[in-house]
Structures are given as C-alpha cells and as structure tokens.
C-alpha cells in the first residue's frame, strides 16, 4: 500500500495577522508557521494504515520553505518526502498542477490531503488534483477503512450525519479533523527523520485563473465591550444575567 500525503507548511490563523503593504498579501511579520492542522490528521491516518498493512507513506510539500513541515511528517513516521520548491499563489490550480507533475513517476494507491488549509480555507487542492488525475474522490473523510483494492470512507455531512461510500483505489481522499489523534513527534522520530530522503522536484505552474485585487480586514459589527478587571467584569456579567432574568 503506497500512500501519498499532501502537507502544507501554513501560517497559523491564531498568529498576528495583518495585510502587507502591497494590499494584496498577508504580511509575513508575526506569522507562525506549522504543518497545516488538517494535514496532520492526514499524515497520522496514512501512517496508521501503513503500520497495519505495510507499504510506504510519501509526503509532498509545495513551497520554498516547507522543509520544517516535511521533516515533522518524516519524524511522525512518513518514509520519504518530495519537496516542490515553488511558491504557488492563491490559485489552488497552481498547487494541484505542480503536485500532479511531481507525482508523474509515482505509483500509489491513495492520495490524502487535508480537507482545507488553515490559512486560505479554499478546500480545493485535493479535489482539483483528483480531477486532473481522473481519480475518484471523497472529501471530509471522518473515518476510513482500507481493504484490498478499495476504501470504505465515512464522509462528514452537515448536522452530525455521515455518508458511507466506497471507492476503488487509486483514489483521493481529503481528511477532516478529528479522524484520529495525531501522535506527538518524538526525539527519536526527529533523529530518525534526519536520514530519510527529501527529494526536490522542480516544477513551475503554468495555470493562472484568478487575480487578487485586494486583501483587507473584514468589516465587523462590534459587540458592546465590557471592560474592567476580572472582578468588575464578573459583576457586570451578573448584572446582565439578572436584567435578562437568566438568574
């Protein structure tokens, strides 16, 4: 069983966020990068399947500075990494295109991607790649089971419902958070990861379907703010509860 996992080195939306001076991109200052949260679950799931069924987990990263994330995935237990050192734009087609090119010589059973990236929230790359490769796809996978030649996946729907589907391999799955509990990266894992292969594949995107016009802080309707020290705040909250007949 050979599983390809797409892992993005992505800024955490909880870090300090502002718009760069060009008005079209996110300012890099204050951004904290890590493996995209949804991809962590995908890497974990792939490694679990490998531990059960043998085979290989290959992690793929796009970006000139994605080494840390790829090493982290190797430390979790991926066997080797493919780095595509190109900074693709907001246009997810570009990311999908370079991944498709880089995987040209790889045979695989499953490609797993996170449901979306924590920074762009596009939820596109996995499905675009599936379409480009003409493979069946299932998104928001919350539970899965691999059998010979097929995958049984439970996809998350709205309102707590799931949909159980069956896909032949090779196929593409995008993984929803909570499917498993991703392991911590151990010191041993980090040591072992150093000797693992990280191959660079140089490809550049050719597609361009959209253009960023501007980036800005969203207009928000602001709540009435309650100020003071913790004790004053508590007093004021209790006053509101009383006024509303809640207590």
């Amino acid at each position: 069983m050979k599983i390809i996992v797409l892992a993005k080195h992505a800024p955490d939306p909880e870090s300090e966020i502002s718009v760069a001076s060009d008005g079209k991109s996110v300012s890099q200052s204050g951004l904290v990068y890590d493996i995209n949260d949804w991809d962590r679950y995908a890497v974990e799931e792939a490694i679990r399947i490998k531990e059960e069924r043998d085979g290989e987990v290959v992690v793929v990263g796009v970006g000139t500075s994605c080494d840390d994330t790829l090493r982290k995935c190797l430390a979790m237990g991926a066997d080797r990494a493919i780095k595509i050192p190109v900074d693709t734009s907001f246009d997810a087609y570009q990311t999908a295109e370079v991944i498709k090119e880089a995987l040209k010589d790889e045979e695989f059973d499953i490609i797993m991607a996170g449901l979306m990236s924590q920074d762009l929230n596009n939820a596109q790359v996995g499905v675009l790649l599936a379409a480009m490769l003409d493979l069946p796809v299932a998104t928001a996978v919350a539970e899965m089971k691999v059998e010979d030649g097929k995958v049984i996946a439970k996809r998350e729907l709205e309102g707590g419902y799931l949909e159980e589907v069956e896909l032949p391999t090779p196929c593409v799955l995008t993984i929803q958070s909570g499917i498993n509990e991703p392991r911590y990266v151990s010191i041993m894992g980090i040591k072992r990861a150093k000797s693992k292969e990280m191959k660079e594949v140089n490809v550049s995107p050719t597609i361009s379907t959209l253009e960023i016009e501007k980036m800005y802080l969203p207009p928000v309707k602001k709540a009435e703010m309650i100020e003071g020290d913790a004790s004053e705040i508590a007093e004021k909250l209790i006053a509101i509860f009383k006024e509303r007949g809640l207590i």
Partner: protein
Amino acid sequence: MKVFCIAEYRFDELNPLSIEILNLANQIKGDGTAEAVVIGKDVGKYAEELVKYADRVWKVEDDALENYTPDLYVDVLLQLVEKENPDLILVGNTSQGSEFAPYLAAKLNAPLATDVVAVDTSDGVKVSRYLMQGKLMVDLKLKSTPCVLTIRQGIFKEGSEVGGEIVDAGIKPSRESKRKFISYIEPEVGEVDITQADIIVSVGRGIEDASNIELAEELAELLGGVVAGSRPVIDNGWLPKDRQVGISGKVVKPKLYLALGISGAFQHVMGMKDSELIIAINKDPEAPIFGVAHYGVVADLFDVVPELIDKLKELKG
C-alpha cells in the same frame, strides 16, 4: 449573464441554500437568466419549489442518479454546460457542493472560488471571501467564464419570486459511478441534548486542556445550563461529539450562549448565531466572535470565569 445554480436536497428536503443561490443569481444576472439544475431520480417536487425563484429549472433524472456521487454529478453537469454555455455556475458551499464543484471546475478548466460571500458582475466576475479563519478578506477577479463558485450559507436569504419554466434536460449519465453510495449514518444521541438548553456555556480551544472543562461545568451548573464546545474541543476528545455546536455539529438557539475561548470561525457561528444573547470572552480583541456577540470581553477566561463562579456562589448563598 446566464447563471446556473446547482440545487441540493437530502432526506426529502430541498436545502434552503439552493434558494439562496437563486436569490444571488437573480441579483447578478442582469438581462440574463437564473437557471436551477436539479439532479436525481425523482426530482419533480424540488423543481416545483425551485421554479418559483428561477427563470428555468433543468431536471436531470435517471435511476443511476438516485444517490449523489460526485463523478456522476460532474458527468451530467458537463453535458448540460456544454449544451447551454452558462457564464457562471453557483453551487452551495456544503459538504456536497464543496466536493463536486472543484471537480467540475477542473474538468471545465474554469476559474473557481469557494466559500464566497459576495459576487460582483459589473465588470467581469469578482468575488469576496474570507481567509485565515475569518480574520482577513480578499477580493478576487476570476479571469474567464464560465466560472464556478461555491456560496456560503446564510448570506443571500432575501429574494423575490420569478416564476419560470421546468424543462427536462434529457441528459443521462454517460458512465457508471466509480464511487458507490452505501448509506447515511445518523448522529449518535447522548444524554444531554444541547439543542434544548436555555443556557449554554460553550468552550473553545482556549480552554486548553480536558482538565479545564470542569471550570465550564461548574459555571454551567451555577447558571442552570449545559456545557457545549467548538470542534477542536470535540476533536481532542474533551467533550462528546453530541456537544459540538456548528455546521457539522448542532444548531442551538439558547437564551444565553456564553462563548469561552472560541474564535468565531464561520462553521461555528452558523450553529449559534441565532442565540438570544451571546456573550464572548476571548483574549484576542480581533477575534471574529466579537462580530456576532452582543457583549464582548477581551480577557483571559481563566481570570474571568473563576471570578464569575465565586460571585455566583456568593449570590446563591
């Protein structure tokens, strides 16, 4: 503009978002048309509902389309799009829509934008969407038509009736689906039904650890309410799945929704925004939750909640 809107239904009910995307289509069509497409085995009743808001409804019916599969949806849509040449294809940003829309776009080589909240067609196609989990917005220009957009729920609720015609598209799938539908699985029922609670103390990732849930439990008990949580809290196993508030969890409408350490991602907000009173405590003054809350407190929840507990205890004697 000729705008196609792909309808969605499940468990015998049309998704209200299908009407919302028609409302949007009617706003932006100019002297063009707003046309719905409904795919399935027996879709007549959905077509009847849709046609009130559409200039035309295309029915694509076949036994093989009884259950949604992305490959067959894309297969029939490609045939219809080739025949009818729409400029814009609108899809709901749902579990289903956000699955087949990118596949369709890729097969059409069409520009794609997902989770869109505003569309401007006065000069080409421009859209607005959030990124960074709601903390930033971006305006995008799509370079060519047709293009595919998935539209966020709850934005285009207002619209007027149009009243058009229902047409049988006469299109059949040209292949078999590689992906097979097996079944729907209902959510498990737990001991507490958060949808019935008047007071909800809801915790987010800011609660930091399973052991801190106790704090929320204590507060909830003093207020006569229940504890619920955002998705990461459930993903981490700190609360059971049936306590999740949001799009993939439950929709709640209590008298008081106290959000502790919740950022206010759209998927969460969809589950609680209609609560009568929303109070948010968050360290980050820029947290999007303050955009939906009635009252906001910028503070560490671990400072405020214990104070609140003490004062409520005093009050109760």
